[in-house]
């Protein structure tokens, strides 16, 4: 987690090691070993998920990585950062992403 995020009390996310992701030609599947659940991921979830690994990242860290990789970030409406955070929270709720601190 970036030092900045830690001090500001911002949540940081990492991929649950129990998750296995398989990319198919159209969408991706995420299998959770412990629960046995299979999630069919929405088209752009994979992109956010691809930045996640063992090291916890904040929405800001992820946005920076996506910009570095894709050039620019845009959202249908609203702030891309807010959207990334919202999506990370949903991924956490589904048990795909781990959150630290959990506050």
């Amino acid at each position: 987690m970036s030092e900045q995020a830690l001090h500001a009390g911002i949540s940081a996310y990492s991929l649950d090691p129990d998750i296995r992701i398989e990319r198919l030609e159209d969408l991706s599947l995420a299998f959770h070993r412990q629960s046995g659940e299979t999630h069919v991921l929405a088209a752009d979830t994979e992109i956010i998920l691809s930045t996640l690994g063992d090291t916890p990242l904040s929405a800001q860290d992820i946005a920076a990585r996506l910009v570095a990789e894709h050039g620019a970030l845009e959202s249908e409406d609203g702030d891309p950062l807010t959207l990334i955070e919202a999506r990370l929270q949903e991924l956490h709720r589904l048990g795909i992403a781990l959150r630290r601190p959990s506050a």
Partner: protein
Amino acid sequence: MNDEELRTGEEKSAAELSSRRRVLKLGAVAVPAVATLTPSMAMAQGGGAAVSLLNCTIPIPAKVGKDGIPVPEHKLSEIFVKNGKEYYRNDNNKRIRVFNGPVGNTAVHGAGYTGQQIKDSADRGWSPPYDANVSRKQFQAHLKYIQKVRSGSVPGAGLTCLVSLSANLHTV
């Protein structure tokens, strides 16, 4: 939305995909998964049931904006009538026409469409299903809603039906 607009929408998303390198576009609301399969679903069927377009159902909310976005719960009480038509003001204070869900659709329980109705409608240039008792404009709002759920930009149900359908709609 006429069928011209719907096609343009499809093309646009294809174009967006190909230019993902330059601009990464995110959906408006975060829905990470279009469907989740749980172990309990295997046994619940008591013998496994294939999802077919014919039988699967896509629920539609009771009040949907012309933009395909369901009227948020806290706005339901603020729906007003003007010239016999319903409207509400969204969070950006924009006035949006409101349509009812397909409550008169005899093909499904509750308000919604079967996958087959949507597929058949696509085959007929997106005219409303014969047996659904909805107006053309109303149906267009529902289609916009379905597109948004499918792309994950609004949360919604319909699960495997939508995934089956997405492939069908892309070939239109």
